[in-house]
C-alpha cells in the first residue's frame, strides 16, 4: 500500500475522530469560530506587453476560511482543532480550485500534549527545526523547562501532495523524518539531548533526474547557561548522511558547533558567537551553512544620556576541508548615535562606517567595500516626523585571474520621508511622503539612476471606517540602451463595518498600475477593482 493511500486513510480516520470528539463534547463549554475572507475582483490588463502581467483578466473569486474549535474533554483534556481551507477560480492565487491549507488537532492536559496534522517539530537548530505533517508528543515534568518531546511525519509542504491522487507537478520526492528531544533544567543550566532521523523515498516517481536521495541521522547536544544578564548557549551536532546517486551510495559525516554569548559587561552590551560547520555536515531537517567557520562580536554602549556607540567585527571563511580556494569575509563596523542634537528634543543623528573585505585565496582576487551612512530623524510641530538618510558605498574589486584587472564603483543613496498626524473631531489623518534617489555606478560605462516618489494618506474614523489613497512613481534611467522604465501606481481603498455584516468588515479597493518602457512594445496597464468581505461566525 502506498504511503499516500495510507495517509488518505489516516486522514479519514482523523476526520472521523474529530467529528466524534466534537459531537461528544457538544454539551461542554466549547469555543467555535469560522473566520472568512471572501474577495471578488475584476482585473483588466491592456497594452502590447500585457503578457507580462500576473493578473488574469476578468472577474474572479478568492475565499479562505479559518476554522477553530476548542473544548474540554473528560479528565481535563483540552481539544483544539484549527484548519484553513481555500477556494479560488484563478491560478493567480492558487493552482488548485479547492485546497486544504492547514489542519492541526491538538489534545493537551496540564503536562502532556499530542498534535496531529500540521506540527512544528522543534528539537534544536542543527538536528530538527521543521514544519511537518504528522504527529508530535510532549510530556512535561516539573515545569515547562523540563520535558521530553517527539515528532514524526512527512516533510510535504502542501496537503495536496499527501491527499490528492493526482498531486501538482511541483511535488518533490517524498521525505519523512522525526526525532526526540529531552530537555532538563538545572537552575542556571539547561541542556537538551536530541536525535533526529530522516529519509527520502528513492523509488518515488517524483524524484527528479539526477536528484540524490538522502537518509541521515543527527545526534545533537545543546546547552544554555543563564545568569545575571549573561546568556551562553551552544549546540554540538554530528551528521551521518547516506546519499544515493545514480553512481551508487556516498556516505559522509560531519560536525557542527555553535557557541553564542550575550551579556552586559560594565554597561557594554555584548553579542558574540562562534560557529564551525564542517564541509560534510548536512542537515535536511534543521538549518546550517556547511563549510563555514565564523566569529562575530558586537559591542554597544551608552556613553551618557545622549550618546550611544557600537562596534562590530565579523569574520568567516569557507573551505574547511583545505582545498584550493578559500573565500574569507571580514567586516568591521563602527557607529554612533546622538540624541537631542542642538538641544532639540526629537532630533537624532547617527552615523556609521563599515568596511567589508572579501579575499579569495590563491591570488584569485579580492573585493573591498567601504560604506558610510548618516541618518537624521526629527519631529516638527509635535506631529510631523522627518527622516533623512544618505549612504555612500565604494567598491574596489581586484581580479587576478583572466581577464585580470581592477574596477572601482561608487553608489549613492539619498532617502527622505515625512509622516504626519492630524486629528479633526471625527477623523484621524496620517499623511506620508517619501522621496528616494539612488545612483549606482555601472562597471561598464555610466551610472544607473533610480528615482522613487510616494505620496499617501490614510484616514481613520475610529469606528472601523477607514480610507486611504497612495500614489507611487518609480523611474529607472539605466546605462543599458533601451532599458529605461517608468512605473506609476495609484491605489484607493475604503473599509467599514456595515450594520448588515456583524463582526465583519467590507473593503473596496481600486488599483491602477501603469508600466511604460523605453521600448514601448513592453508597455502594459493593469486595473483591479476588488471587494473583500471579512465575516466571522462564532459561538
Amino acid at each position: 500500500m502506498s504511503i499516500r493511500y495510507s495517509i488518505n486513510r489516516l486522514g479519514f480516520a482523523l476526520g472521523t475522530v474529530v467529528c466524534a470528539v466534537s459531537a461528544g463534547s457538544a454539551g461542554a463549554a466549547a469555543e467555535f469560530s469560522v473566520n472568512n475572507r471572501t474577495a471578488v475582483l475584476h482585473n483588466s490588463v491592456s497594452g502590447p506587453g500585457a503578457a507580462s502581467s500576473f493578473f488574469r483578466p476578468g472577474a474572479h473569486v478568492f475565499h479562505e476560511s479559518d476554522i477553530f474549535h476548542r473544548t474540554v474533554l473528560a479528565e481535563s483534556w483540552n481539544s483544539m482543532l484549527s484548519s484553513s481551507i481555500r477556494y479560488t477560480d484563478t491560478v493567480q492565487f492558487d493552482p488548485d480550485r479547492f485546497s486544504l491549507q492547514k489542519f492541526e488537532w491538538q489534545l493537551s492536559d496540564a503536562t502532556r500534549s499530542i498534535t496531529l496534522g500540521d506540527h512544528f517539530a522543534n528539537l534544536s537548530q542543527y538536528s530538527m527545526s521543521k514544519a511537518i505533517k504528522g504527529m508530535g508528543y510532549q510530556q512535561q515534568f516539573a515545569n515547562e523547562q523540563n520535558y521530553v518531546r517527539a515528532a514524526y511525519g512527512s516533510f510535504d509542504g502542501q496537503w495536496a501532495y499527501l491527499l490528492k491522487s493526482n498531486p501538482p507537478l511541483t511535488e518533490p520526492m517524498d521525505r519523512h523524518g522525526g526525532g526526540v528531544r529531552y530537555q532538563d533544567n538545572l537552575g542556571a543550566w539547561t541542556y537538551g539531548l536530541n536525535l533526529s532521523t530522516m529519509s527520502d523515498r528513492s523509488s518515488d516517481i517524483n524524484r527528479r533526474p539526477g536528484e540524490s536521495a538522502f537518509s541521515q541521522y543527527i545526534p545533537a547536544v545543546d546547552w544554555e547557561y543563564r545568569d545575571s544578564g549573561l546568556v551562553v548557549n551552544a549546540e554540538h551536532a554530528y551528521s551521518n548522511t547516506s546519499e544515493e546517486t545514480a553512481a551508487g551510495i556516498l556516505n559522509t559525516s560531519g560536525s557542527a558547533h555553535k557557541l553564542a554569548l550575550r551579556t552586559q559587561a560594565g554597561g557594554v552590551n555584548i553579542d558574540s558567537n562562534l560557529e564551525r560547520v564542517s564541509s560534510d555536515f548536512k542537515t535536511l531537517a534543521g538549518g546550517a551553512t556547511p563549510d563555514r567557520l565564523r566569529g562575530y562580536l558586537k559591542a554597544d554602549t551608552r556613553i551618557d544620556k545622549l550618546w550611544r556607540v557600537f562596534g562590530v567585527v565579523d569574520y568567516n571563511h569557507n573551505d574547511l576541508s583545505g582545498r584550493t580556494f578559500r573565500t574569507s569575509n571580514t567586516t568591521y563596523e563602527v557607529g554612533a548615535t546622538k540624541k537631542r542634537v542642538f538641544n532639540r528634543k526629537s532630533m537624532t543623528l547617527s552615523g556609521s562606517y563599515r568596511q567589508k573585505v572579501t579575499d579569495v585565496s590563491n591570488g584569485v582576487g579580492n573585493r573591498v567595500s567601504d560604506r558610510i551612512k548618516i541618518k537624521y530623524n526629527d519631529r516638527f510641530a509635535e506631529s510631523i516626523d522627518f527622516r533623512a538618510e544618505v549612504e555612500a558605498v565604494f567598491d574596489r574589486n581586484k581580479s587576478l585571474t583572466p581577464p585580470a584587472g581592477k574596477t572601482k564603483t561608487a553608489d549613492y543613496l539619498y532617502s527622505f520621508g515625512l509622516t504626519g498626524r492630524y486629528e479633526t473631531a471625527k477623523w484621524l489623518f496620517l499623511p506620508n511622503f517619501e522621496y528616494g534617489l539612488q545612483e549606482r555606478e555601472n562597471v561598464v560605462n555610466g551610472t544607473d539612476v533610480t528615482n522613487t516618489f510616494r505620496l499617501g494618506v490614510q484616514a481613520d474614523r475610529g469606528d472601523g471606517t477607514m480610507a486611504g489613497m497612495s500614489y507611487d512613481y518609480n523611474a529607472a534611467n539605466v546605462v543599458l540602451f533601451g532599458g529605461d522604465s517608468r512605473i506609476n501606481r495609484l491605489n484607493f481603498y475604503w473599509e467599514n463595518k456595515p450594520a448588515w455584516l456583524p463582526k465583519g468588515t467590507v473593503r473596496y479597493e481600486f488599483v491602477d498600475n501603469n508600466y511604460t518602457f523605453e521600448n514601448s512594445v513592453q508597455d502594459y496597464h493593469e486595473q483591479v477593482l476588488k471587494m473583500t468581505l471579512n465575516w466571522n461566525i462564532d459561538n
Partner: protein
Amino acid sequence: MSNRMQFMRAAWFLMVCWMTALTPAHAAWWEFGRNENEPAISELKFNQVEAARVEDQMVIGRDELQGGSVTIRGRAEVRKGEIGLIELTFDGGQTWVPAIAGDRGFFTYEFRPEINREYLFNIRAITTSGQSTDLDEHAFKLVISPESAIDEVKKTFSRLLEAYQRENKSAFMALVSNDFEGDLSSLEDAITDDFRFLDNIRIEPNITRLAPFGKNYDLYFTFNRSVTASRTGQQLRDNAASTMSFQRTGEGFKLVSMAAPLIFGVSNTEDVATSVTEQSVGQNVLSVNSSSGQAQTATQGQTTTGAIVSTATLTYDNTGLIGWYQQNFTFDTESVDSQGVSGPTVPTIGDFGFFGDNYHVIVSAAAQMVIMGNQRIEDVAEAPAGGYVSTYSTAPGLRLKVDTSARTFAFKLPGGAYAVVEFVALSGRTATFKYKYSPTGRQF
C-alpha cells in the same frame, strides 16, 4: 592586523567569557565597570518577549497577552549590598507600584493593559542603602496593539515587499532584525546588488500558512515574480514556494531568516538563505551573480548554493564485447555511451570521455574545458569566463588529468551551455564524479 588575528582575538574573548561563566553564579564578574553599590536590572521579560535592551518602544500584540495580562519578569542585582525594593511605573514616573520580589533578586509583576493605549514604562531597583538604578536604562513606551501578532507579521511582510519593489533599501533594512540568522551585512549588500542588477521587480505572493514556531512566526508562501535584468534588458519570470521567519522586537515584527529560493537578496543566496524549501527543489528560479551582474533563471538545488548536483560513473575497460572501450558522458541527456577505442580518444558521442589508464579527461571536438583545481562543486556558483582549451592532446601542457590537485573541471558546451564536474572517486579504471549543468549560461 591580519584577519586571522582578529578572529583569534574574538575567539579568545569568547572562550574567557565562557570559561568564567562556569564559576558560581553570584560572582557576576562580568559586571565590571559598574559601581559596586549601584543596582542594575539584569533581566527583563514581558510575557515571552525579551525587554532588557528595548530602547524607545515596545509593541505587544493583543493575542500575545496571557489571559489579558502581561507578566513582567526580571531580576535586579547589586554587587555589594541588597536589593530592597523594585518598582514599576506605567505613566512616566507619576506613580510607582512595587513588584513581587523573590529569591536572588528575581521579581514578577502582573499587569492588565488596555488595548491600543500607550504606557510610559520604567522600572527601578533600590538597594537597602538607598542607591537606585539608572532611570534612563529601561524607560520606553509600551503599546498593546489592537492587531493580532499574525496580522502584524502579515503587515511586516507586505511592507518588506513594498520597500523591495520600490527599491527602497533603507525602508527594507529597517524591517530586518539585528539577529538575522543569515549574514546581515551580506543581506544588505545582496539587496544593493539586487537593485543594481534587477529593475521592474514585481512579486505577487500568496501566503499558504503563518503560525508561531518557538520565538518566531514562520510564513509559508508561493510567489510569482518578474524582473528585468538590467545588464541585458531581458525579462525573467519564475514562480516557486518559499519560507521566511519573523521575530518580535521592540519596534514590531522583523525579518529574522529566509529559505531558498529567496525573494529578497537573491544576489547572494549562499550567505543569506539558511535552508532550502524542498517544494522548490528542481524549479527554475531567479539567480543573480553579484560579480558579473548576470541575472538568469537556474534550477534550485538541494542546497542554498544553487543548482542540483548529480553523480555519474565512467569506465575505461576491455571487458565488453567491443574490446577496449571508453565511456563518454553527455550533460543535457545525462547519458553514458561506450565507444570502442585503442587508447585515449576524442569522443564521437558525448561531451567528454574518461581514459582510465592515466585518468585523463578528454573533451569532445565541439566543447572546451578548463581545470578548476580542487574546488568543491557545491561552492562553484559560476563557470570561469576564460581559460578553456579545445582539444585533447598528450602534450604535457595540455593534459587535463585528474589528480590530487586537479579534480574539478568546467566545460564550455555548444549553444551557450556550461557544466562543472568534480571527480570524487577513482577506482581501477573507473571514475565517479559529481556534476551540475546549466543550459543557459555560466551560472549554476
